[in-house]
Each structure stands twice: as C-alpha cells, then as structure tokens.
C-alpha cells in the first residue's frame, strides 16, 4: 500500500496566477499520475509523471499549462499555470506501487479560480 500526502487541500486563486500542488508518497513507487476532476464529473488523466524525465501528457493537456516535476521515486509536483475559471477542479495525485495494478490516491486539491 501507499500513503499519499497531497497539498494544499484547497486554494482559491486569482485569474492569471499559478499554483503548484505537491504529492509526497511514504514509499518508493513506480508510476505517479495526475488526474483532474471537474465539478460533478469523472476523472481525466492529465499526465504520467516520469522519474528523471519529462512527463507524458494525455491528449488535450500540454506541458506549458501543466508543468510536472518528479525528482525522485516518492515526490511529484503539478503546476497549474496562468489559471482561468475553467481550471476550477479537483486535482488528484495517484500512484501505482511496484508490480501493482490498483491505484492509491491523495486526498485531492480543490482549486477555485476567480
């Protein structure tokens, strides 16, 4: 299993600013993922955070808007850049532990952009 600390848990931000979300895992993990969940919707995968290399983005998401870092096997950050009200969502960090198939999730970051 894995225990994930994600912060901040919520934030209210102004249009045009950026917010960095942190995800810390209590053990080394193979895969780390970032998801977005818009109000009342399902989860959409933003990108896979690769350790030591550039993240792999899903269709519709770009590095300039959602830069991701993963400096080691236990930590990753997601930045939401140049925010607009359309970026208001819950952002979720998730991990897959070694040879596992299920995902463990952080508690999410509820972002509101005014």
């Amino acid at each position, binding site marked *: 299993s894995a225990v994930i600390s*994600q912060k901040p848990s919520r934030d209210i931000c102004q249009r045009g600013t950026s917010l960095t979300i942190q995800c810390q895992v209590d053990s080394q993990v*193979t895969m780390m993922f970032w*998801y977005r969940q818009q109000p009342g919707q*399902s*989860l959409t*995968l933003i990108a*896979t955070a690769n350790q030591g290399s550039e993240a792999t983005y899903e269709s519709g998401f770009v590095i300039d808007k959602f830069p991701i870092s993963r400096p080691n096997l236990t930590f990753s950050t997601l930045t939401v850049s140049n925010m607009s009200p359309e970026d208001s969502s819950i952002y979720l960090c998730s991990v897959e532990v070694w040879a596992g*198939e*299920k995902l463990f999730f*952080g508690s999410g970051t509820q972002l509101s952009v005014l």
Partner: protein
Amino acid sequence: SQQGEEDPQALSIQEGENATMNCSYKTSINNLQWYRQNSGRGLVHLILIRSNEREKHSGRLRVTLDTSKKSSSLLITASRAADTASYFCATDVIKAAGNKLTFGGGTRVLVKP
C-alpha cells in the same frame, strides 16, 4: 469519449437495502476496478476483477464481469449510511508508457438512514 459509462448516474436507497450499479466499456480489458469517492476527497480502491473472472466478492461487495457484453456490475448488500459516496468503475488501458486506468462517469449513491 470515456471508456466506461455507468448507470444509474444517481441512486437513492434506504439503509439496509441493496444498491446495484452498472458499468459498460468499449475495448478489451485486462481488468476492471471499482473505486469509491467520498465527497470531494480522493478515491479508495474497492475491488479488482480480472478479465478471466466472472464474479468476485469482498465483504458486502459483489462484482460481476461479462466480457462478452463488455459490462460489469457492483452490488452493495445491506447498505449503510456510511456507504453514501460516488462509485467509479475503471478499466486499464495498455499503452507504451504502461497501464493506465480510464474512469467511468460514476454513480452517486445516497443511503438514507
């Protein structure tokens, strides 16, 4: 469009009743998983069923999988108020970067005391 589609979108039942929700998907899968999300929080893994399995149990949960119909169901027996949550099915999608899960739209379940 999403790999998994769930119905109903919302379900309201009395405590003690059973809750059933369904998930349909489009492409072949290795496994299908169910997750629970309490309001505005992270998801918690409930159960995983592999493509060569037809039924699986875990406590009050029963999951079925019909690969010929590309569908799955989650049954919660003897529901409790604490079961109030959104439930999501997720299917694995094999890509070059590794397996990734694709989530369905979710079913919001309200269990009234």
